[in-house]
């Protein structure tokens, strides 16, 4: 039972949503799938005067664009569900890490059909599955509002736990990614149990040269703070991923990055020290998965 009265609107377009939002942006709650917001409304943790349900605002859909230099990008609408990500051949081909991440989201069909990727980013939870994978995939947040459109790197959309950098009156309309066709991906998470939130996630994208040397490497670790930690991977480039020094170099790069984390996130499910201790494990396993073609999508710790 939601203990506070509020008005509800389900706009049929982004323009209509922006107009509705502009009326009282500080007191309006936007709704994606509602899997985070609705329980918070029930618990009285949010008490908006107005709720705008974006599910009919035309913010779904996955499209592929071919740029002038044969560069391919993919735009994912903000209200795209995990089920839609998983059903999309474009995502399967161009965004392998997102597909892997979506497959690992627990909660069954009910949650896959309900929860949205844009909603997950706007909730800005350290425990999000999506955030780390979106950042590792080089996602750009597409934002619209009464003052016009703007774009920013997905990581910059998060200001703090549960807090975004969106201005009052702005909403997330979609995410644009560069294609990662042919890249190898890995996604791992540590949870307290299947019904828990991810405590730590590790997202990995690796491209190899023909001689098995690492050409590009992206590793993000989420769960330690509001913003996913992007591991600097320069020292890994050119290394033979079959060689013995590869895993040691990955561990070293992750360890250097983790040294910068001073106050790891703590919540009901796990303390910060534990998160910090398991982060390199998740990262190493995700990297190993990415390079092991035998690993199926959806594996997690």
């Amino acid at each position: 039972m939601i203990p506070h009265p509020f008005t509800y609107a389900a706009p049929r377009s982004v323009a209509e949503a922006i107009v509705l939002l502009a009326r009282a942006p500080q007191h309006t709650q936007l709704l994606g799938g509602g899997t985070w917001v609705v329980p918070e409304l029930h618990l009285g943790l949010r008490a908006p005067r107005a709720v705008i349900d974006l599910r009919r605002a035309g913010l779904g859909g996955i499209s592929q664009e071919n740029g002038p230099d044969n560069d391919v990008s993919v735009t994912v609408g903000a209200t795209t569900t995990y089920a839609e990500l998983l059903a999309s051949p474009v995502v399967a081909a161009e965004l392998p890490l997102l597909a892997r991440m979506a497959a690992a989201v627990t909660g069954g069909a009910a949650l896959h059909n309900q929860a949205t990727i844009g909603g997950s980013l706007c909730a800005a939870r350290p425990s999000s599955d999506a955030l780390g994978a979106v950042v590792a995939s080089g996602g750009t947040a597409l934002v619209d509002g009464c003052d016009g459109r703007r774009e920013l790197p997905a990581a910059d959309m998060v200001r703090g736990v549960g807090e975004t950098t969106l201005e009052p009156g702005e909403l997330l309309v979609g995410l644009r990614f560069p294609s990662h066709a042919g890249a190898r991906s890995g996604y791992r998470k540590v949870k307290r149990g299947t019904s828990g939130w991810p405590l730590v996630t590790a997202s990995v994208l690796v491209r190899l040269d023909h001689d098995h040397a690492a050409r590009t490497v992206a590793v993000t670790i989420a769960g330690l703070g509001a913003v996913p930690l992007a591991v600097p991977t320069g020292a890994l480039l050119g290394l033979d991923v079959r060689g013995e020094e590869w895993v040691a170099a990955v561990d070293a790069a992750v360890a250097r990055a983790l040294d910068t984390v001073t106050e790891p996130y703590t919540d009901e499910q796990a303390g910060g020290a534990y998160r910090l201790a398991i982060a390199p494990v998740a990262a190493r396993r995700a990297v190993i998965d990415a390079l092991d073609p035998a690993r199926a999508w959806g594996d997690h710790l």
Partner: protein
Amino acid sequence: MSTDIAPAPSARQQTGIGARIPRHDAADYVTGRIEYFDDTVVPGTLHVALVRSPHPRASIRGIDTGRAAAAAGVVAVLGAGDLLGVGEIPHNVDPAGIGGQHTKVTALADGEVFHVGHAVAAVVAQTSGDAEAAAALVDVDYEVLPYALSVADAVAPNAPVLVPGWRDNVIAGGTMGDGDVDAALAAADHVITGSVSLHRAAPCPLETRGYLAQWDRRARRLTFRGTAQNPHQLRWHLATALGLGEQQVHVVAPRSGGSFGAKMHGQPEEVLFAALARQLERPVKWVEHRRDAFAVGGRELAAHYTASCRSDGVVTGLRVAVDGNLGSPSAAPGWGMVMVGCLTIPNGYAIPAVDITWRAVTTSKAPWNGVRSYGKEIAHTVLERLMDQVAARTELAPEEVRRRNWVHPGAFPHRTPTGLDLDSGDYQGLLRLVAGHVDLDVLRAEQHAARAQGRLVGLGWGFELVPESVDLPGSFVGGMDSSTVRMDANGHVTVLTGVTSPGSGNDTGIAQLVAGELGVPITDLDVVQGDTDRCPYGFGNLSSRSIVAGGSAAVLAARVLAERLRIVAAAMLHTEPSDIRLVDGMAFGPAPEQAVPIAAVAHAVYTLAFILALGIEPSLESTQTYRPGGIRHLPDDKGRINPLGTYSNALALAVVEIDPETGAVDVRRFVLAHDCGTQVNPTLVEAQLHGGVAMGLSTVLSEEAAYTMDGQPVAAGFKTYLLARSPDLPRVELLHQCTPSPVTLLGTKGAGESGVGAAMAATLNAVNDALSPRGVEIDSTPLTPERVFTALVPGAGR
């Protein structure tokens, strides 16, 4: 559609004891056609929201209801002083009965709040939304008082006394046992000490509590629909609190979406909503929020023990101190968990000298109700940890230590040091069953090989003795029960029972027992439960006694009818009653042509009573009460009673692997050999055991109703109270042994709480076995990845 339809298999289904009959209403449950409490809609109903305390302890200086009373849809806002004609809430089992401290429990907090969530005021409104919105507008002026969240804080010399008028914070306590533990310790080859600390968990039924109270002004009668495990006792409870006669209260408990102890009465809301309905003369309804359901606690039990054993592994003495952190005082029966847990010690082992000290301590958390397994899990975990410690000290195999210490199969009946009379059992037989099912040598060789690779693999045993069919003298916790069996003139049978089903399907078991006695198809039979106007007086659902007591009573009543049917059928078929067989809906005589439908016999009883039914009392209705044989309330020469009627038992073997890098525990294999005596319906028994094992594993690994340091409950939903899901659980490999009870009519012992403690103990032992190469030990639950990792890597915790 084809017309070539085979006869429905159910029409000629096997009935009687041992038949694997599917639950008669399973399809209705899984398709949502069952009428649960919240499905009932009564026009004109008012809805209630409760204003709850944000403080763990405070005095109430004043309640300002002005803003709330003026809010939309609000009919009334009431505090404790505004309730008319409501007395003290009677205790389900008053601790004062065994020398503990009585507390006056009120429907709303009266002057002082004892825990976060304690209800202070009720807002009654046209819709539940209006009520919730207005509840936020009630201004309560609190003066915060010192509180205590742990047993240590509550029993400290300078602790605040949490309940006005109490001498200290101990609700009840005492000592139990027999023999000279000091002498045993002095003569021991080894002295072993240890402790076990179980965390607070919740009963967690998927259907939360809810009540709908209606007052009939003309008839001066209350109808109370609600999630109740014990409708007849709730009737007395409501009548007493409201100053009514029992005849003025009608309790209806609809089909249940699980109870696990949460729906035993004594919680303040029951009386509150009945009082509101009478005072406002309107139907009043309330459904418990999930967050408030998690506040109903249990299981927070800690034990410290010292034991003596000989070099041959035989345990000679045991001293245990058990403390329960009960939360704030309540009229619900949670505190009894500590006592029943201690009575269960020494868990089926023939330890001659046992000395138990126990305390149920009040703190500033929310109160307990009972939780499935009802405290026995502390006996199981303590004794099973001890057996593994003895094995380590004597370098014997852990199963061999158990084998040497169990009560021998030839030694029953066996009186335990706490006074329980174990009627029968073959615990060594359970070990043989498991050892015949798994190859222990192979499992240990695999473990050895895994350890050589640095993997953390562990094997753990967990034995449980599960005393059931409780009857506490002087309380309404009763061991007997009653059933009515009635056959109408068309041969249709209605069974009305005093026991209720928490969703377990005991009604199917009772139906098949009656069908077997009467020789009628189970499809010609209805079972009615949970209605105090229709059903005979009974004690509802508790202590795994629905089949033992309610099923046996139904069998006795069915036998009365069967005897009458045989006499009348014999008159119709011109033969002797002893020659009549009742089967498949027919009464057969000895000759092939001697056959008459049972429906025709029934019809004759009603219509030809002065011709064919002269030899019987001309009625096809009987109510019988069954009282199990084992319960003994006369104290023995040492002052001990046996308040429990049956003693199911089970032996679990868990194989776990711990991820050394994350601390995650994977239960790779789980075997449970169990003995609940005669099984009326093995399919239903297996369902109970699967559920019990799942609850035990989920509790020991994951579920936790935690509190913050400032007394706020953490659990608000299923993301802050983590139930195990199917990927977290192993396949349960079940093995059956049957040692019939010599003290119950059918040899049944009860299966409703089995598996919980065995799963907890086996998993705790397996995790410690896995950790043993690292030289660390865990004696506290839950075994979360973080806790296990912190044991492996000291200093890695929060």
